[in-house]
């Protein structure tokens, strides 16, 4: 363990890779600090730039964006009162009132410090639990992997803002997209006579198209419906270092609890920064001796929010690396990067690519240090960048998406794939279909089909899925997650109906 970690550290410690981590962190913070841009979008934009890099450099750059992105959301949250990413919504509750009270530097400083500690704690969780989970999952055979993928998809679909039916529909649609082109038996499927479809769809243009277009066009629509959301702010910020050290000294337990909550939630498929954010804020409030002061601009709220969402970064790597099951959207894209570089995440990754796993650990730690330095030194500039209007951002990002898709294989067809899936993503978004299960379906589709048929080739009986204890457990959990989502949907509908009745009365 120590051996491969030192080797990985030597590879990550080269000036060129350190520079890439710095660029990644800077871009991530910028991406996270621009409202509506999100960590996922920052990762998607940087993704094509990794094509020409070796795996360690590519992954280090992406990890930098990941770490920076989760901490960047604090800037616009504090300065504008608009969360830069959905995972920093609760940061606004206390960060914005503190900034309005004339202490924006203090709010930003506390958030950055909490982000830093949260990331480090989550790396510790990853280092400890990643190999454990991987060695446990070494016993998984095709039946267990098939059942696990089905469980992950149902879990993600079920957690899609109460839209269970649409979430499941999206997951199935995502899986269907991967069936276009030649399959494992070299049979052609759904080519409709077009030669270009023979190779199937590249994962990257499909993912970018579905997510980026819906997100960017959605931002434009929001701007049209609410032009006031683009208001400005005073970006003249100074960080009071001693005050922040004193604030953080009084938040030890809160920081630890929130970081552990973030790591744990990050490791669960279907959750992510947003859920971690709300759960840890709620827990901090419950454990607090002065819960009534939450939301008025106190350090406790900022710490709970920022420590947890940054801790998601390390936690989310646990299932992605150990099982090959990405828990959320940024991780699905991260997995795409690894696959593109010829590395298949999963239990064998720890055996076959230990240096790359070590490089991820090392990049996360170095990224956290770089993040805290960049945030503290350049926060004034990030605050200014957070004011870039969507009208300028959208065309530039669309252009980068197009060039990124082209650069994947120097193939113009991929730009058309991007465009077609952009239209599909936008239409599905308009129909309130959750897009995360769809993208996870696209990422996991090939593996699901491969494992399903490997299982059936070994034993043609479908009942084997139910007679093997672990696969039966995962399938039962899949059914349970669907039933639980149905129950939750009912509960929400009943509450809404009660509320409407009491309002009318």
């Amino acid at each position, binding site marked *: 363990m120590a051996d491969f970690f030192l080797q990985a550290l030597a590879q990550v410690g080269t000036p060129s890779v350190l520079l890439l981590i710095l660029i990644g962190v800077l871009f991530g913070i910028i991406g996270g600090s621009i409202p509506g841009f999100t960590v996922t979008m920052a990762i998607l934009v940087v993704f094509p*730039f990794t*094509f*020409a890099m070796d795996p360690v450099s590519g992954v280090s750059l992406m990890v930098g964006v990941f770490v920076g992105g989760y901490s960047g959301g604090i800037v616009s949250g504090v300065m504008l009162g608009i969360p830069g990413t959905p995972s920093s919504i609760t940061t606004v509750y206390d960060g914005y009132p503190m900034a309005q009270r004339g202490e924006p530097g203090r709010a930003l400083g506390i958030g950055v410090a909490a982000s830093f500690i949260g990331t480090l704690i989550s790396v510790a969780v990853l280092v400890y639990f990643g190999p454990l989970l991987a060695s446990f999952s070494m016993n998984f055979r095709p039946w267990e992997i098939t059942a696990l993928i089905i469980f992950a998809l149902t879990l993600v679909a079920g957690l899609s803002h109460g*839209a269970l*039916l*649409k979430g*499941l*529909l999206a997951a*199935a*649609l995502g*899986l*269907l997209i991967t*069936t276009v082109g030649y*399959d*494992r*038996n070299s*049979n*052609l*499927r*759904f080519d*409709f006579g077009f030669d270009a479809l023979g190779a199937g769809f590249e994962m990257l243009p499909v993912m970018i198209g579905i997510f980026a277009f819906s997100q960017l*066009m959605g931002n*434009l*629509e929001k701007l*049209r419906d609410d032009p006031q959301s683009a208001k400005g702010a005073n970006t003249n910020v100074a960080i009071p270092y001693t005050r922040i050290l004193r604030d953080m000294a009084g938040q030890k337990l809160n920081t630890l609890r929130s970081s552990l909550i973030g790591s744990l939630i990050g490791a669960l498929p279907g959750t992510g920064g947003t859920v971690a954010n709300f759960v840890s804020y709620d827990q901090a409030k419950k454990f607090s001796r002065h819960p009534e002061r939450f939301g008025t601009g106190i350090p406790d709220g900022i710490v709970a929010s920022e420590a947890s969402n940054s801790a998601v970064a390390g936690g989310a790597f646990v299932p992605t690396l150990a099982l090959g099951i990405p828990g959320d959207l940024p991780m699905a894209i991260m997995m795409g990067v690894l696959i593109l570089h010829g590395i298949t995440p999963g239990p064998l990754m720890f055996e076959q690519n230990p240096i790359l796993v070590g490089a991820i650990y090392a990049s996360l730690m170095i990224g956290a240090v770089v993040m805290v330095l960049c945030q503290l030194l350049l926060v004034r500039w990030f605050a200014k960048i957070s004011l870039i*209007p*969507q*009208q*300028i951002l*959208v*065309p*530039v990002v*669309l*252009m*980068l998406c*197009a*060039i990124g898709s*082209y*650069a994947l294989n*120097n193939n*113009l067809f991929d*730009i*058309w794939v991007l*465009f077609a899936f*952009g*239209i599909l993503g*936008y239409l*599905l978004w*308009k*129909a*309130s*279909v959750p897009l995360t299960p769809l993208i996870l379906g696209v990422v996991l589709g090939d593996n699901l*089909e491969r494992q*399903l*048929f490997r299982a*059936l*080739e070994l034993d*043609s009986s479908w009942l084997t899925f139910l007679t093997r204890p672990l696969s039966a457990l995962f399938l039962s959990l899949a059914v349970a997650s669907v039933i639980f989502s149905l129950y939750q949907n009912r509960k929400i*509908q009943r509450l809404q109906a009660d509320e409407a009745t009491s309002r009318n009365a």
Partner: protein
Amino acid sequence: MLTLTKDRALALAMLVITGILMAETRNIAPPTSWQPYGSALFPQILLGIIAVLSLLLLLRTWLVSQGVASSEPSRPRRSLTEWVRHNATVLSLFGLFGLYALLLPLIGYLIATLAFLMASLALLLGIDTRRKWLINLVVSCTIAPLVYVIFRFVLNVWLP
């Protein structure tokens, strides 16, 4: 009479797509003697699941119209012309992107990208003041060549 809500349109579109693709699975080669299952099975399973889910969605929209549950907030209905006018910017941007994809191999990266950026910035920012023109020119003329330089000379990727 049942009106076409978003959920209903989605369910119907999915059912149509499922029908077309299900018919298309007949063109997939059948399994050979040594294969227990053929290449069409996995897509057929998925299409079956999509069809069932779409039917359930359709059924739910019918229940909604009967007042059992409501998943969509009620909004004023727009005619197609009104909808196009309301979404003119987004639709135009899609149009510009399609044009960009079309022109990229014909006129090359630099000119096509400059044209796309300038046109889309003009569409979104407006062109009614000198300041907006200046922003448009600065952004387009900086970003397009910068991306070219990064891809061509740093990453060794040729752009069209």
